[in-house]
Every structure is written in C-alpha cells, then in structure tokens.
C-alpha cells in the first residue's frame, strides 16, 4: 500500500487552516465563525497526527486528543455566550456587538 507522503498531509492542513481563517474574518454570523475556528483546530490536529505517523511518535496523537478536549470546552463556552447575547439582543451579528470598545 503506497505511503501518502507527509507533504500532502501538511498541505491539506495548511489549506484547511487558511479556509478557517478566511471564514473567521469574512463571516459575521457567530455560529459560522465558531465553525471556522473548529476548522482551524482540526487543521492543527491533522498536522499533529501526520507528524506522529511520520516519526512514529505517540506525542502527536496525545496532543490531538488534548486539542479535541480543549476545542470542545471552547465551543461550549462560546455557544453559551452566543446564546446569552442572542437572548438579550434578538440578534447575534458580531459587528453589532461592540460594547467592549475602549
């Protein structure tokens, strides 16, 4: 079975990450932005696992699990915030929520 080279994994990871960044910057719906962030997390995970496979080192696998856990926690908190904001303002457009201006 032909080995998929490391380069391809890393390129896929970079593409995923850039899609995530662009999604985060261009979309104004917080739910979509959260999905973009998830995309970036998983781009990182893909790179971790690709390296772990390539160097036969379990550290990368372990890190991927850690990232999944943190990402879940982050998503829970962020969704809670979004729900609270939506209840209060009947709207969740991030450009309308700029009360934290300095």
């Amino acid at each position, binding site marked *: 079975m032909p080995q998929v080279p490391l380069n391809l994994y890393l390129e896929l990871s970079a593409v995923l990450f850039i899609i995530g960044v662009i999604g985060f910057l261009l979309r104004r719906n917080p739910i979509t*932005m959260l999905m973009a962030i998830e995309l970036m997390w998983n781009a990182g995970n893909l790179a971790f696992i690709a390296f772990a496979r390539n160097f036969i080192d379990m550290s990368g696998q372990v890190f991927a699990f850690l990232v999944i856990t943190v990402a879940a926690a982050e998503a829970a908190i962020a969704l809670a915030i979004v729900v609270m904001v939506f209840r209060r303002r009947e709207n969740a457009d*991030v*450009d309308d*929520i700029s009360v*934290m201006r300095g």
Partner: protein
Amino acid sequence: MADFFLGAVPLILLFPLIGAATIAFFGPYAHRSASAFIGCLSIGLSFVLTVGAALVILPLSPAQQAIYAHSNFVGYWAHLPPDLIISFRLLIDPLSLLWMLIITGVGLLIHVYSVGYMASDKNYRTFFAYMNLFVFTMLLLVMADNFLWLLVGWGGVGLASYLLIGFNYDRPVAVLAARKALIMNVIGDVGIMIAMFLMYAHVGSVAYQNVFGHVSQIGTSALTWIGVWLLLGAVAKSAQLPLQTWLPDAMEGPTPVSALIHAATMVTAGVYLIARAHPIYDNAPAAAELVAVIGGVTALFAATIGCVQYDIKRVLAYSTMSQIGYMILAVGVGAYAAGAFHFMTHAFFKALLFMSAGIVIHALGGEQDIRKMGGLAARLPFAYWTFLVGTVAIAGIFPFAGFFSKDAVVDAVLNSHHPWLFVLAVITAGLTGFYMFRLVFLTFLTGAYRGDHEVHAQTERTMTVPVAILAVLSLIGGWIVLPHHDELSVMLSSTFGDARLPQSMAEFSGALSLGLLLIAVAGIAFAWIAYQWRPQIAAAFHRSLGGLHALLSNAYYFDTIYHWLFEWPVLAFAQWLRDAFEVDAIDSLPALALRAGGYFASLSNRWETGYLRRYGLTFVVGAVLLLFIYLFVAHGAAVGAAP
C-alpha cells in the same frame, strides 16, 4: 530546696511574661475576673520564688553570692563579628535581689489593689496584661547581666509605661502625655546606647563582668563620657532635670499605674543603673559629681513646685521626682547603699500614698483637685490614716521608714564634702514636710468638704488590704538598718564592697539626725499654721509670692521653654516643608505620572474597537508577521539551506 530556688530563678522572669501572654490571648474568652486572677497569680509566684532565691543567696559569703550570680544561667544569644559575643544571662546578686523583691512584692500588692480599683473599667483585661508586661520588662532590666539586655528591659518598661499612661486612650490629654513620656524616655535609651558603643570600643564587650573588670584600662576621659551617657539614660527614666517634664503628665494613667511605674519601680531604674555601674562612677569623679549635682538640684527643684500644685497626684509626682533626686544624689556621692535604701523605703511609702490617694479619688468619682476636697478625714478615715502614715514616713519623722533612709542619704552627702549639696538636701527635707502636710490638710482636714461629688465611702477588701500592708511597711521598713543590726548594709556589701563611701548606714550622728528631724517638723508646723490654724496666712503667702508663685505653678515654665526651643522649630519647619515642597514639588510628581499614563492609554485606546473580526484580522496579521520574522530573518540561513 536551695537548688530548687536557684534553678527556678528564670521562672521569676518568665511568670509575668506568661501571665501577660495568657491574658492577652485567652482573656477575652474567659470571665474578666480570670484575667485579674492570672495577673495577680503570676506576680505572686514570681514574688514567692524571689523570696526563696533571696533566702538561699543572702546567707552565703559575699564571694559566693557573686559566683552564684554569674555561673548558673548561661544562654548563648548572639555573636556579632568580629568579636562581640552577647549571652543571655541573668545576674542575681544582692543589688538585683533588692530590686526584684520590691518589683514583685510591691507589684503584687498593686496588682491586688487594681482588682478593686479598675473593677468598672471597660478594658479591665488589657490593664492586667499591660501590668504583667511591665513587671516582666522591669525584671528583665534588673536581672540582665549585660548592658544590652538591660537596654531591652529599659526600652520595654518605657513601652509598658507608654501603654499604661495612654490607657484611657479616648482622652486626648492621656494620649499626648503617653507620647511625651515615650519620647523623653527614648532620649535616655539613646544615651545608654551611646555608652554601650563607647564600652565596646574600649573593652570590646558590654557584659557587666568584662566592662567593670577592665575599668582601670579605660582612660579617665572615656570613662567620664560613658558615665555621662549612662546618666542621660538615668535622667530620662528617673525624671531628673532636664528631662523631668514627662512625669507630672504621666499622672494621666490610672492610679495603680502611677503607684507601680511612676513612683515605686520604673522611675527608680536610673538609680539602679548608676548603682549597678558604680565601678565606672567610682573611677570617673567628674561624671559622679554631675550625677550628684543633678540629683541634689532636682530634689529641691521638684520640692518647690510641689508646694503650689493643686492636683493631688501631681503633688505626689513632684514629690517622687524630689525623692528620686535624693537617691540620685546619694549614688552620685558614692553612697550606693544609701540610695538603694531610700529606693526601698520610698517604694513602700510612695506606693502607699498613691494608693490612699486612689481610694480618695475613687470615692470622689475621679476628682483630683484638692481645692474640691477638704474635711475628708471623717468620711474616709481609712484613707486618711494610711495617707497620714505615708506622709509622716516621707517627711522623715522618727521612727517611720523615711527617717532612716533620708538620714542615711543626708549623712552620706555631709561626709562627701559637698557643702552646698548638703544644704540643698536639708532644705528639701524641710520643704517635703511642708508640701506633704499641706496636701494632708487641704485634702482631709481644713474645714468642710468643698467638692460637689458625692462621697462613696465603701471600699473593697482588695483595695484596703494592700494599703494596710504598705502602711505597716512604711512604719517598719526603715528598721532594717539599725545600729548593730544593719542588715541592708551587710546585704549590699558584696556588691558595693569597694565603693567610695562604704561606711555603715546605721551610724547615726546625733546632731544631724536631730537637726534633720527638727527641720522636717518645722516644715510640718509651717504647713499647719498656713493651711490649718490660720488659712488666711496661706492666701497672704500666695499673694506675697507674686511672680514666684506663677513660676512655681508652671513648673519653672519648662514645658513652655521646651515648646519654643524644640517643638515649635520642628513644627514650623514641617509646616514650611508642607507649604513649599509638598504641594508643588512632591504632589506634582504623581500627577505627572498620572497624565503620562493617560496619554499613552489614549494612544492604545484606538485599537480597542470592540469589533471581533478586526481583532481576528490583527491577530492573523501579527501571527503571519512573527512567522515571517522567524523563518526569514532569525533562521533565514537554516531554512534557505534546507532542500
């Protein structure tokens, strides 16, 4: 038994400390009588152990008394490079034993008296904690075997005195008086410290043994300076000229405090210091001369002021100052044993006077002005008779205690060939009789009661019993020095063996004793004529004094002089600094820092837009920039070389 009491000597010091700590930490959780009980118990145990130690040590031969004192209680404290080793040792010799007996004995009586006297005070527990703390520090002062630990005790009694003068902290007068006493005392502490530096410079040690053993190797001029600096400490603590002004104000403290600290024990620490340092003064005649002059002048100075004061406690304060002047005079002319003897009798009759006066003040609801008393003998007979015993004793009437000790002091002054100091001492003896009996007549006799407070005659047992004991001691206390039975001279001979005036205190020269007695009686007679027999004479007398009366009433204007000499310049300088510097120079610095901070904040403010996506963009741009720097600037060569 002997070993037990010698081994228990550190406990004498520890019990009052344990008592103070126990009351301070656990007193609030128990009934207030528990604090009083612990306070009295700790001093009582110390007293019993002190008596035991005295009974063991005093029968020994003089040389053994010294050995016991020095060899038993060794503790290593500090080693300051290069060669100053300070050990924590207790010195128990006849001199410190005498002081310990008075501190714990009279201290116990005054603690018991306080149980009744302070009964209605809201800070009852605190009072006993402070009193125990005082006894601990005072014992430390007299039991130390080197000047450093003496100074620790010295500062400690100053602290306890400060706390107790300001005990009624809601009265501004009391707080000011406490502050004044502390400042004056600290001047004296600095004097002792400088004396210690000089000792270390010349001997390399501050332990009594080493310093006194090498006295002959120190030059006379250095020794004189050590004596003068020690004297500064003694003068401040014992309220002698020119640092005397704090003692009358210290009467703001509760009356038991005045009796214990500002009459019987703490103010005599100066006498103890000079008696303890007698090898220095024996070899520095100029310093000893200064000691004698200050003592003699203060004795007369304070007695004259006492003649015109109207506050019962202030009169007693000035008489304390005057009697301590006698003691300082005695130790100044080299009659250390006579000074210690007068300290002992004075502790009895002055504590008695203060406590009887306390009964009067208690009965009159806090009134201290003798112009609002009068005729109290019939209503407060117990206070009258005990006060009378104290007055007769302090006036030096045979056979009361004061007669013997004052005779010993004046006799020593006469033998020391200081004619004018002798004259001062004799005049003071007459004045003492006058002002003390003036106090008796105005307070207890002379017509009817002039005040408007009701007289509450009932007095508690805890107050009367200690007073009665002290009254007995004021009568018999002097009999310790009788011809052929001169116990005190024998007791102190091992300490002052080579002092300049080693003669026995029991050698009465008939003419001197009789003359002194007659002068005291003359003073009493004059007080009787002026205040009892023909009161109009007193009024005419006051008028005829004119300006002198004002001078005496204001204590020679020392407070005013010190105010303009020391207080005012400092306050004026501080005011000037505040007006000129603080507002313009110092206050503007923080304001400048504030403005600078505000400016930088306004710069960075613009980045804080509140738009989430703009933050995200900034973050991405920053991350890309960092990555760029990392890859192409910092590690440019390495990345470029990779395939």
